[in-house]
C-alpha cells in the first residue's frame, strides 16, 4: 500500500481530521502522516462500533442516534451532524430517532430508558458508574453481549471525541 496515497484518501474522507480542521500541509499533518496507521484503524473502529455486521440488539439506527446524543453531550455539533447522516441512512424514526435528543429519557420504554441511563452516565461521568448500572441493563432484559456492545459504542465515542478536541487545539496553536 502506498502510504502517501492512502493518507491523501484519509485526509479527504476522515471525519476526525475534517472536524478538527486539520490543514493538509504543515506540522500537524506531518505528525499525522507518521501515525497514518492509527488514523486508519480509528476509522475501522468507528465502523465496527456504528455499523457492525452483527449489531445484536442495538440496531444501526439506535447506534447512530446514541452517537448523536453523546456528541451533543460533548457539545460537538460537527460530530452530531456526522452521525445524523448515519441515522437517516438507517431510516431511524420514532423512539429510535428520539434517542438522539439528550432530553429524551425513554418515553416509558424500560429498555430505552436503561440504554439512555447507561449512555448518559458513562459518557458524562464514568467515575460515578457502579455495579447497579449494569444490573439495571440486565433487569431491562438486555443480554450481556449487548451490554458489551453498548459499552464499546459509548467508550469508542469518548475516544473519538477527545481525539477531535485534542487535534483541534493542536492545529489552532501551530
Amino acid at each position, binding site marked *: 500500500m502506498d502510504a502517501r496515497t492512502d493518507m491523501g484518501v484519509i485526509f479527504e474522507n476522515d471525519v476526525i481530521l475534517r472536524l478538527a480542521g486539520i490543514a493538509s500541509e504543515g*506540522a*500537524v499533518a*506531518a*505528525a*499525522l502522516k*507518521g*501515525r497514518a*496507521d*492509527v488514523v486508519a*484503524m*480509528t476509522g*475501522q*473502529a468507528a*465502523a*465496527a*462500533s456504528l455499523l*457492525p*455486521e*452483527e449489531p445484536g440488539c442495538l440496531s444501526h439506527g439506535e447506534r447512530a442516534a446514541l452517537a448523536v446524543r453523546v456528541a451533543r*453531550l*460533548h*457539545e*460537538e455539533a460537527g460530530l452530531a451532524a456526522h452521525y445524523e447522516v448515519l441515522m437517516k441512512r438507517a431510516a431511524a424514526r420514532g423512539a429510535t430517532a428520539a434517542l438522539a435528543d439528550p432530553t429524551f429519557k425513554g418515553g416509558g420504554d424500560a429498555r430505552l430508558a436503561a440504554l439512555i441511563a*447507561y449512555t448518559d452516565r458513562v*459518557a*458524562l*461521568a*464514568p*467515575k460515578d*458508574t457502579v*455495579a447497579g*448500572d*449494569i*444490573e439495571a441493563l*440486565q433487569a431491562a432484559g438486555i443480554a*450481556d*453481549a449487548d*451490554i*458489551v*456492545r453498548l*459499552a*464499546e*459504542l*459509548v*467508550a*469508542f465515542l*469518548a*475516544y*473519538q*471525541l*477527545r*481525539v477531535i*478536541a*485534542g*487535534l483541534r*487545539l*493542536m492545529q*489552532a*496553536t*501551530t
Partner: protein
Amino acid sequence: MSGTLHAFTTEIPHWQPRVKPIDLTKASPAQRDALKVTPSNTKVSDYVLVLANDVETLKARTPLFNAIMYNRGGLGRAERELGAVGASVVNRCIYCAAVHASRYNQMTKGEAEMSRVFADGEAAELAPRQTAIFRFATRLSKTPSQATEADMRVLRDAGLSDEEILDLILSAALFGWANRLMHTLGDPVAREGEA
C-alpha cells in the same frame, strides 16, 4: 461486592466481571480470530473474554491500542503511560490506574511521581514536563474536554514536539475508551492471600 477497591493503588487488583465472559471452549471462529490478536495469547484474561462478546470492536480495538501505546517514535512509552494514568484518575478507573502507574514506575525506576498522583489527584505537581503532560491528559479527559489552547502552549513550552503531542492526545483519548470499559463492565477487587 464487599472487596471492591475504591482507592488508587499500584498493586494490580483482580478484575471481577459484571457480565459473562465468553466460554473459550465454545468461541466462534470470529471470536477465536479476534482473540489471536490480543497481546497475551497464552492466557486470555476475563476482561478480554468479556470484550469478545462484541468481537467486531475487539478485533478493531486491539491493534489500535497496541499502535497508540507501543509504536515507534514520538512520545516515550513512559510518558504515554502518564497520559493513560491522567485519564484513569479523572475517570477513577482503579484497575487501569494500577496497571499503568506500575508500568510508569517500572519504566522510570521510581515511585515518587505516582505516589504524588495518587495522593493529590488531578492537582499533582511533578517536574514541569511531566506536569504539563499529566495536566493536559486530565483536562482532555473531562466531558466535554476542558483542555485549552493555553494547555497546548504549555506542552510546547515544555519541549514537546508535534509528534509527541499527537501521541499524548491519542494515549489520553484511548484511556477515555479503555476506562469506560474496564470501570463499568467489572470491579477491581483485592487479591486474596497476597500481601
